[in-house]
């Protein structure tokens, strides 16, 4: 795919951990929200088990954690609407993009590589 077709932005946050069990997802989303609040253009890429964050109907974590569904619902308030899902992760988890709680654009590895180049900065959580 043409590298110039990749979405551009100041910051690409890659989320690779599921919503419960660790605080990685929450910490990554916090970094994304703060960057957006600072006026940066932020893209989110859900990769691996990070995709599970987008499953609908999530409650609080069993361990008293707040969960991340509420944070994800706030993303649009922060103008974070460039959301991407790794097609390999979608296939592995047998999920379709249209059954997730937020609209995401499926991206393959070639496109992900282009996104890494087209964002000024990348943070991986």
């Amino acid at each position, binding site marked *: 795919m043409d590298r110039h077709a990749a979405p551009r932005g100041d910051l690409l946050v890659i989320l690779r951990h599921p919503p419960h069990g660790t605080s990685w997802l929450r910490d990554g989303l916090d*970094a994304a929200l*703060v960057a957006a609040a600072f006026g940066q253009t932020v893209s989110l890429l859900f990769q691996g088990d990070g995709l599970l964050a987008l499953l609908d109907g999530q409650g609080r974590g069993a361990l008293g954690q707040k969960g991340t569904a509420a944070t994800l619902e706030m993303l649009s308030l922060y103008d974070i609407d460039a959301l991407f899902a790794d097609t390999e992760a979608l296939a592995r988890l047998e999920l379709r993009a249209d059954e997730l709680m937020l609209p995401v654009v499926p991206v393959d590895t070639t496109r992900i590589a282009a996104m890494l180049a087209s964002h000024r900065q990348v943070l991986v959580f």
Partner: protein
Amino acid sequence: MRYALLVQGAPYSQQASHSALRFARAVVTRGHTLDSVFFYHDGVYNAARLAAPPQDEPHLPDAWSELHEQYATALLVCIASALRRGLLDEREAARHGKMGHSLKSPFELTGLGQLIDLGQRCDRLVTFSP
């Protein structure tokens, strides 16, 4: 070149902060500027004032402090990650009614905005995660 580091691994249980320290020393040895090290997630334990590792192991909180003294590298600790894990400076300890403080000087509590700022201000922001 102006560098900043993001450290997210706990000292002694993960390699991340040990590798970060070695990288930090290499950066300054090569004559580059190490602007700041930002500690996030379990990386905040690097700032533990009361850390007492065995004498034949590296003392990470002390090593970071030396880096600050020699090269004026700012040691920035995410306040949200730190308070959850019991790392409080004197001001926060007083605010939360705690008997003692646990954040080593010259580490300083700060917000995530500082991390974003570093990403904009520095030529390179290098992450060390477990």
